[in-house]
């Protein structure tokens, strides 16, 4: 087995591993219908069901969202993908009011008290923040504690990079593009396999990346059909989902996280 095959197997395997961890919880409380199984299987690799189902969209809208996910590495046959679009369109179509999705709230202005990180969080506040993190599937992309994906920015030391109000704004109104060090790299190998991860390094000959499971891998550029560095921010707004006290508390909690042991 050559390096490329080995590495791509690792990636496939990693995605499957994620499936094993998250499928059980993923499908709870989802309406039954054609395409449910495919939705659970394909989409739970990277995120919670709620991340998709809190949105409302037309069939065209869902098709575009799902196609974007495929280009980000969602794995499934064409029939699987069609069924996912069907399931989402049928069960999560536009509301009768005609609104596509509930409007995103704008980040509320801060009072100094909310930005003050010197006030230590109580254990119940920490517990609340962890609950919000769990309920919203933040670990689908980020690392928190010893859990989560290695692709998005690590939140364990986010407090060393961001203040509470900046974190709050990122949750409610994510920037359209990510910082260069958080860029995604999407590779298509000669055999058509797509590999997605966070870019760590590259030169003219090869690219180094880390995938969701933390697997480090190097790919020679000569063995690639496509090589794309993506700076679009994949993070959706959580403004509808996390608000008020939860949002303030989460931002305060995250801003308190710094490198362990330091």
């Amino acid at each position, binding site marked *: 087995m*050559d*390096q490329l095959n*080995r590495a791509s197997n690792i990636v496939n*395997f990693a995605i*499957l*591993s994620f499936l*094993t961890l998250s499928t059980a919880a993923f499908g709870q409380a989802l309406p039954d219908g054609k395409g449910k199984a495919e939705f659970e299987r394909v989409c739970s690799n990277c995120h919670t069901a709620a991340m998709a189902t809190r949105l409302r969209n037309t069939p065209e809208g869902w098709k575009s969202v799902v196609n974007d996910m495929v280009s980000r590495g969602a794995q499934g046959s064409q029939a699987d993908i069609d069924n996912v679009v069907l399931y989402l369109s049928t069960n999560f179509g536009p509301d009768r009011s005609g609104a596509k999705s509930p409007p995103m709230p704008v980040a509320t202005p801060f009072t100094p008290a909310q930005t003050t990180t010197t006030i230590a969080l109580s254990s119940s506040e920490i517990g609340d923040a962890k609950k919000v993190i769990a309920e919203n599937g933040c670990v689908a992309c980020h*690392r928190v504690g010893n859990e989560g994906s*290695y692709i998005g920015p*690590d939140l*364990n*030391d986010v407090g060393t990079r961001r203040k509470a109000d900046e974190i709050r704004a990122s949750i409610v109104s994510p920037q359209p593009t990510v910082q260069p060090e958080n860029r995604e790299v999407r590779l298509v190998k000669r055999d058509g396999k797509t590999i997605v991860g966070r870019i*760590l*390094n*590259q*030169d003219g*000959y*090869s690219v*180094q990346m*880390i995938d969701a*499971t*933390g*697997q*480090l891998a*190097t790919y*020679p550029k000569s063995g690639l059909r496509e090589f794309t560095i993506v700076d679009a921010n994949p993070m959706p707004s959580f403004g509808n989902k996390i608000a008020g006290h939860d949002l303030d508390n989460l931002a305060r909690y995250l801003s308190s996280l710094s*490198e*362990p*042991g*330091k």
Partner: protein
Amino acid sequence: MKRLALALLLLAGGSLGAQVTYERMLHADREPQNWLTYGGDYSSHRYSTLSQITKENVGMLQLKWVHQFRTLQKVENTPLVVDGIMYIGDTSQISAVDAVTGRVYWTYNHTVDPRGVFVLPMLKGLAISGNRLFWATLDGHLIAVDAKNGKPLWDKVVAVWQKGYQLNVAPLVVKNKVILGPATNEEGANCWVSAYDVETGEELWRFNTVPKPGEVNGDTWPGNSWIHGGSPIWVTGSYDPETNLTYWGTGNPNPGWNGDVRLPGDNLYSDSVVALDTDTGKLKWFYQFTPGDEFDWDSVQVPVLVNMDWKGKPRKLMLWANRNGFYYVLDRTTGEFLHGSAFVKQNWNAGFDAKGRPTKAKDHIATYEGTYIEPGVQGGTNWYSPSYSPRTGMFYISSWQNYSAVSAKVDATWKEGERYTGSGRPKRPDWTRTPPNAPLFKKETEGYGAVIALDPKTGEKKWEFKMVDYTDAGVLSTASDLVFSGGKEGNFFALDAKTGESLWKAGMGGTVASGPMTYSVNGQQYVAVCAGSALYVFGLPDVKAAR
């Protein structure tokens, strides 16, 4: 559904396999493509079953890539390689790099306290457990780093540099423990071996290498001399799963070159090997190579654990070529002395008693005017890793042959933050010029470096590969009967493990002061060694498509 369940089960098993578990380290020989511990395996054989590079093709070795460290110091690092990823470092930075291209995945920095003054600012290597790397920093931190993204998981100060300590070793991981000990900058700080929890960094046990008065062997230090007895840890120990003992070599007593305050006395456990229960840190046995040492003959060698026939009976042995110029065989279950013979010229030991205690030559004591010693202060060998090949049955060491020195003492008073050595300049005019250490103009009778192969049962020299200059390089042996080593001349070379014949060499442009190691990725074998302040990786012309 059944199929899915089976698939999930397999996946769960597979995902555990990606971690460096105790099981994997225990059977490191089953995955020769990797290099999981400082010495290559728990027995510290520094031997690999990889055999793609052979006597026939070794001449075709070519440079694959170089990693430049951010230091002007010589680099003593032995890299770890786990499934195609190499972990390396110097005193200020560690990195994960692709083992095929050398391209960096991540780096993690630690700024050594600039107020610290350290005798030997080196990092010998890292240790790994699960997905955690362990880095013992020069200024006394033990840091657990996530091997995937280079982020710190915990960071503990385990030795306070202001008190005269430094960390220099690659830690040893056994089960849930990270085991290591500090060295002292010859400042007379008493040292220890201790174990820390891999998850939390909590100290689990500690063995003090200088016992206090009232403790067993506390009476080997006259008066208050024990307070600044030193006995440091400079190199990584070994582990024997059969006895559950971990073995560590200890360094010299302080003051190192003047024993007036601490003699008569053996000054335990300086210049010894200590066998510790891996679960509790309790001393099972010790053997002291150089009792009451006055010439800095640290026993900071890597314990090499070998099971072999000894006088007709299978026996668990420990092979040890010591800085004092003698080659030893010990029973590693009991510490029993089985053999001792000189592998270099020596003038200090008039013979062993039945228990293996050396009889010191009468005039071999530190003096103010100067004492002629064989071997010299740097010893017959030193911290450089030896190698044992189960194929050839030979024990390979880097040695300083015909090497001598004139060592003189001065009075020593301990002062905090100062070196406590008692080392002076020779006063006798005919000895003011010690034998030349520089290779230029030097005659072979005045000293030379050599890789030597010993018959481990007899200590008999089977062959010798001579250099002009001395050597600080470790030795690697492989299943294709190759030996790799180097030296101060700056050459990295391959020898025939059976005969010592030179097969290949490369000029590295800097001293080779590290132990070579080997690994493979995608069926291609590589040999890596640090020279000067860089890591060099060699391999055959690409076996498969070039990267």
